């Protein structure tokens, strides 16, 4: 004979399927939310790591290169370049700012990276056969009269509002200024698949800072024998700038762009776990109530409480296992189809699966204990 708990599940299949779907959806959401956060963590670090800089300098009180408002005057370029331990001529002034370029009349999201070609902070070339790099400004120390053509190199994933590629020679507008798209790079995306737009530092200063000679940050490398931590301490003593190592910068940017804004999402994930447990508890409870006479009959013919609780628990375990497994599968599928970068981590998936399984089974077990209250006398009259 097929196991009684399986026969019962087939008999009440609509409820079983609906409960399993509920678990599947919740597990998928829990994993996807985690995957979105992982994706953000990865993307937020990609650009910073790609620069290979290990000194990140911003204005004093800004909290770090990507954390708060930071404007640095050009004079610091010389000062930092001449600090002992900083690799000579490695200092690169950088503008890194969110912008809403207008393409075909519609604004889209992007990050502008203004840098000096040949210095840290940008790509060295475009994708083969996809245009050229922008024309650089003439002087190493930036000057008001040094104004290169308004050109921009875009990320290959940047699209028009209708989803088409922006052609080489196409126009985009930032701050009312027309910029000529001259090349495409296979660069790195910033948080939530925000594409990077690369342009000369002077062009960035013109479109974002009304041609002011300020920059957001300066990045540099240390000499091989020097510790970044020691240099950061020394630069900080200046009192006008705030220096951070690569690790400190990564920590602050993850905190600023992912952990802090995503606190609500973390809370939501816990709520979803709770919801999964409540769904299983409620459905098991209602099903147990519905089967009161059946349970009473089993008790009357000699079934122990343990036997009946196990019948219900086996169903809960099967539904939870199926729900969690399908949920994990669906989450991986959805991650590949998601419009943003989602990275579902295998270790995290295992932890989520185990916790979800335990939560669902615990809920089911609590509800199944209702069995203990069923009086076998009910079998005689069938009344609740």
């Amino acid at each position: 004979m097929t196991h009684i708990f399986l026969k019962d599940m087939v008999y009440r299949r609509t409820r079983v399927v609906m409960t399993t779907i509920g678990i599947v959806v919740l597990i998928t959401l829990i994993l996807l939310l985690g995957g979105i956060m992982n994706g953000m963590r990865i993307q937020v670090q990609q650009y910073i790591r790609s620069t290979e800089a290990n000194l990140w300098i911003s204005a004093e009180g800004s909290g770090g290169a990507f954390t708060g408002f930071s404007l640095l005057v050009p004079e610091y370029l010389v000062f930092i370049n001449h600090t002992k331990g900083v690799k000579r001529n490695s200092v690169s002034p950088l503008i890194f700012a969110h912008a809403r370029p207008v393409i075909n009349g519609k604004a889209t999201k992007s990050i502008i990276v203004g840098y000096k070609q040949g210095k840290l902070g940008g790509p060295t070339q475009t994708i083969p056969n996809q245009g050229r790099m922008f024309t650089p400004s003439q002087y190493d120390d930036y000057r008001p009269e040094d104004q290169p053509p308004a050109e921009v190199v875009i990320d290959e994933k940047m699209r028009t509002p209708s989803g088409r590629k922006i052609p080489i020679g196409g126009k985009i507008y930032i701050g009312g200024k027309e910029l000529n798209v001259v090349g495409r790079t296979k660069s790195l995306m910033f948080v939530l698949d925000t594409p990077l737009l690369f342009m000369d530092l002077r062009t960035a200063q013109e479109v974002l800072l009304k041609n002011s000679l300020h920059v957001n940050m300066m990045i540099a490398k240390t000499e091989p024998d020097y510790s970044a931590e020691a240099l950061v301490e020394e630069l900080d003593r200046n009192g006008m700038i705030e220096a951070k190592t690569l690790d400190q910068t990564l920590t602050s940017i993850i905190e600023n762009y992912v952990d802090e804004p995503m606190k609500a999402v973390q809370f939501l994930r816990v709520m979803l776990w709770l919801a999964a447990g409540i769904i299983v508890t409620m459905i098991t409870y209602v099903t147990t109530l519905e089967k009161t006479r059946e349970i009473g009959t089993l008790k009357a013919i000699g079934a122990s409480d343990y036997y009946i609780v196990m019948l219900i628990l086996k169903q809960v375990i099967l539904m939870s296992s199926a729900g969690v497994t399908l949920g994990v599968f669906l989450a991986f599928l959805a991650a590949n189809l998601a419009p943003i970068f989602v990275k579902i981590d295998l270790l995290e998936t295992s932890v989520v699966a185990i916790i979800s399984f335990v939560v669902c089974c615990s809920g089911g077990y609590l509800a199944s204990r209702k069995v203990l209250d069923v009086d076998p006398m009910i079998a005689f009259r069938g009344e609740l």
Partner: protein
Amino acid sequence: MIVQAKGLTKRFGEGLAQIVAVDDVSLTIETGELVIVMGDSGCGKTTLVSLLGCILTPDNGQLTLDGQVIDYAGQDLSQVRRQKIGFVFQLFNLIPYLSALENVIIAMQIGGFSRFEAEKRAKDLLTQVGLARRLDHRPAQLSGGEKQRVSFARALSNNPKIIFADEPTANLDSRQSDNLMNLVRQLRQEQQTTIVIVTHYQALQKDADRVIYMQDGKILTD
């Protein structure tokens, strides 16, 4: 002697709403007897059978079943039920998603039979009650009389010392009731089982060894 009850009392409710469903009842039932319990509705018949069948715990009194004094506080009553007692219910109480055969097997699996033994014995019992061609039918596909036959087969499945049947004919027409009583006679002859039947069905009296009349929770005549 299979059953000896002394001073069994069962009350429901509290204060003014309290009802004494079984009031200081003492009785004995001998092995192999067919006992019919009769009386008006609410006289305490089903409560008495529930007490004798270890479904309910009495407020007072002592029950000895098959020579064993029932210890309500320290004994697992479900074990007593599956080893010594079979039940037949008025509403049949068959598990709706199991076939006739499976409904009998499940009781035997609870009783500790192996799957192979259970299936073999369940088939024999269902054949004995005339349902050899209905083994794979679910309760919804059986008539009332057939359901009650499955219920009797289930009650007999664990070789109980005694079977308690609560109004087994209440949901059957007279032809089905007659057929069922023929089955009870046949089972008594073949299985030598002690049977206690709670019923309003007068025709059963002629087959009974004893007829107990109850009124207001007490035995009026025995």
